[in-house]
C-alpha cells in the first residue's frame, strides 16, 4: 500500500490512508493529459479547470489506485497503478506429479 501511496504523492496527490475516494483539487495547477473525444488527439488542460477524483482498492490479489480528471460529466483523464501482490502461478501440480 505504501508504494502506491508514495507513487500518488509523487504525482502531487494528497491521499489520507483511510480514504477510498477523494474529490476536489489539491496542489499546484499542473498540465494534465486529456482526451476530450474518443478519437481526438491527447492534449493537456490545466488541473484547475478539471475535477479530480482519486480512488484506492485493495484485496488479496492487488492494490490498485487511480486518478480521474473530469470535465463536467466526462472523464478526460484516468490513470491507474496496480500493484500485483502475489501471482497465482505456482507449479504445485507439476511438482506433485513429478516429485
Amino acid at each position, binding site marked *: 500500500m505504501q508504494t502506491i501511496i508514495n507513487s500518488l504523492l509523487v504525482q502531487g496527490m494528497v491521499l489520507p490512508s483511510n480514504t477510498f475516494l477523494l474529490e476536489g483539487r489539491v496542489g499546484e495547477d499542473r498540465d494534465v493529459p486529456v482526451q476530450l473525444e474518443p*478519437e481526438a488527439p491527447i492534449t493537456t488542460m490545466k488541473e484547475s479547470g478539471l475535477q479530480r477524483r482519486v480512488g484506492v482498492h485493495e484485496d488479496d*490479489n492487488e492494490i*490498485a489506485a487511480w486518478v480521474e480528471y473530469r470535465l463536467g460529466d466526462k472523464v478526460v483523464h*484516468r*490513470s491507474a*497503478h496496480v*500493484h500485483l501482490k502475489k501471482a497465482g502461478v505456482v507449479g504445485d501440480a507439476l511438482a506433485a506429479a513429478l516429485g
Partner: protein
Amino acid sequence: MANSQAMCTVFKKDLMLGKHNFGTGVVRASTAADSFKAALYYATGSLGAATTAYSSTDEVAGTGYTAGGVAVTNATPPNTSGTTAFWTPSASIEFPTITITTAFDCVLVYNDTQTGKPAVSTHTFGAQTITAGTLTLTMPTNDASNALLRIA
C-alpha cells in the same frame, strides 16, 4: 540421512533457463535471455491456464496502445529459495499515455523471442479503463512466496 524422492530444486530453476529438453525443443541462437512482452486483454476475454501463445484476440485497442504490448524488463535471472524456483520482472510494466475505454483486467506475459510467441503467464486484476493516462503494473516481491512466477 536417508535418500528421498524429489524434484531437484535446481531443475525447477533450470526449466526457466531452458537447460532441459524432453521433447522437440527450439534451436537457440545464443545463450542470452529471451525477450518477453506484456499485452493487455479485455475483461470479456478468456485467457488463463489454457492460453498457449500471444494472440490479438480480445487484446485491447486504443490510442497509444501498440498491439503486442510492451517489453518486460528482465535484469534479474531466476533464483531459488528452499525448494521453490522463482522469477519476477525487474521493473514495473508500464503502458504510458494510452486510452482504453473498454474495461480490461488481464495481462499476458509471453516470449517474444521464440517462434509463435509462446505464453508464459496470465495475471488478472480489478477491471480498469485508462483515458489519456498511464497504466503501471508494479511487481510483487521477488521471493519464493510472492514472485510473479514460482515453481514450488
